[in-house]
């Protein structure tokens, strides 16, 4: 059985054509084994977790907690908080760590390359607490201005940076960013939503203080993600949301909290989702992610070159280490029209601002067409995609 056969949706036709799914930076597809894991949970073991004695509750708790164990193993992390996704994970840092540790006079370094999910929580914190935000600009080579970064670091308390841009596919020089930030006394949060699907990261060796990502971008279900935290920083975090099992005791005078990850997981957790994600993480170990990554970036780089040859503006550099994301615009064909014409032939791409308006503003555009590739995409699909674009350009430009 080929890898593609494991994904039921890839057998689907769209508008009378085989689906060519190139919207992977938005969300990835799920292999049957992940769908089955959630199915089995709901059909066999569904129960609420923690503090219960009966057999189903035991199975459900074990299933839920095995996701945490798996995350800690795969990423070599000591603390893994389960959230509803990257966005909640970053908001959690802003509330649980930010509000407890930052105040007027402190500053946070962001970059113009950030996704809204790594901008808006900080703008809210800044407004509430009078914290200053500094934005590192993006150069015309689609990379961070590292001189400006060094400059911005002066006296900063926290650096928040995207591992890999969801618009450009560019992977940032994280090793150097983390090293410089720590040397300057700043904590580092990595938005790894686009990084983790393409690389197996050793969180402890990597050295960042926080790392956020989502299951749905790595073959897992919707509604779940994680925040990895280094143990010393974990101790500096105050509770965020209250309720359910995050407490040790509750009295009408006040409450005391758990000391492990449960402290940040208020309410009935995402049980089925955790079980699905565990299956996805297990499944991802059945192939060589770094070889796949190499294959995909080669495809992306070929697509980028082909589109340039067809007269497109392409945003990104598509070097080794970057993600297989190709953002482009035709000089005259409107991007929404382009996406509809592609959809008519079964190609799924995304248009719009990709939740990265400051980056697009810097690039002087308001949106792109974005094709993003993942492990089940083939060279043949990429070729079909380029020919379809060629035909569209010939006919509609």
């Amino acid at each position: 059985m080929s890898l593609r056969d494991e994904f039921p949706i890839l057998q689907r036709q769209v508008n009378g054509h085989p689906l060519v799914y190139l919207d992977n930076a938005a969300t990835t597809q799920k292999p049957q084994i992940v769908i089955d894991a959630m199915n089995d949970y709901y059909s066999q073991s569904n129960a609420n977790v923690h503090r219960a004695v009966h057999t189903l509750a035991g199975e459900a708790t074990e299933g839920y907690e095995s996701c945490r164990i798996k995350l800690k193993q795969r990423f070599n992390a000591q603390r893994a908080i389960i959230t509803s996704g990257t966005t909640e994970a970053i908001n959690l840092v802003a509330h649980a760590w930010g509000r407890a540790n930052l105040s007027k006079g402190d500053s946070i370094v962001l970059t113009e390359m950030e996704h809204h999910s790594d901008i808006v929580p900080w703008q809210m914190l800044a407004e509430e607490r009078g914290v200053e935000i500094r934005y590192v600009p993006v150069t015309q080579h689609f990379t961070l201005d590292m001189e400006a970064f060094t400059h911005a670091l002066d006296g900063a308390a926290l650096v928040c940076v995207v591992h890999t841009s969801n618009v450009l596919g560019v992977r940032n020089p994280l090793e150097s960013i983390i090293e410089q930030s720590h040397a300057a006394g700043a904590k580092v949060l990595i938005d790894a939503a686009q990084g983790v699907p393409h690389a197996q990261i050793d969180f402890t060796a990597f050295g960042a203080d926080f790392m956020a990502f989502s299951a749905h971008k790595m073959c897992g279900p919707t509604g779940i993600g994680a925040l990895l935290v280094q143990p010393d920083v974990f101790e500096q975090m105050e509770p965020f949301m209250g309720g359910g099992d995050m407490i040790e005791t509750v009295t009408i005078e006040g409450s005391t909290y758990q000391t492990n990850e449960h402290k940040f997981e208020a309410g009935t957790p995402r049980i089925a989702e955790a079980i699905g994600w565990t299956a996805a993480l297990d499944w991802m170990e059945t192939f060589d992610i770094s070889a796949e990554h190499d294959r995909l970036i080669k495809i992306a780089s070929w697509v980028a070159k082909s589109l340039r040859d067809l007269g497109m503006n392409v945003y990104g550099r598509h070097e080794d280490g970057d993600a297989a994301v190709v953002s482009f615009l035709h000089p005259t064909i409107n991007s929404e029209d382009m996406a509809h014409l592609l959809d008519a032939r079964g190609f799924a791409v995304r248009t719009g601002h990709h939740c990265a308006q400051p980056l697009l503003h810097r690039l002087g555009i308001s949106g792109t067409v974005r094709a993003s590739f993942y492990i089940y995409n083939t060279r043949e699909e990429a070729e079909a995609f380029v020919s379809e674009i060629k035909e569209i350009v010939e006919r509609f430009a």
Partner: protein
Amino acid sequence: MTYPVALAELIEEFQAVDDKRERLEMLFELADEVVELPSEEWNDDTRVRGCQSEAHVRIQVAEGRIEFLSAADARLVQGLMGILTLAIDGMAPAQALLIPPQFAEEMGLLNTLTPSRSNGFRNMFDKVMNEIRQSTEG
């Protein structure tokens, strides 16, 4: 409720076509029917909210007849505007207000289009009808 003749014909034409690409091409051609809103008038008053890209519309009523001016970035949206132009331009306001909003669904366009696009279309339709209503009251 019945559709104006031009619209009824269009609905039939679209219904006869299965292929999305063909329907898009038909829609693109209808962009030519648009009476262009000058770009000086692309402002917040004329903007249609909920569209992915820029879309602007304005209604004026002269001698009891609707004039429908519109403009958009995407040819697809221009095509939708073209349909609306064929449907209401030159019509008496009271008559235009009778047009049911479901026609885009009947044309199979809300299947072709995505919900966000359909919402955009629905917002455009509602904005146009509101302005027509106001013009008859004012």
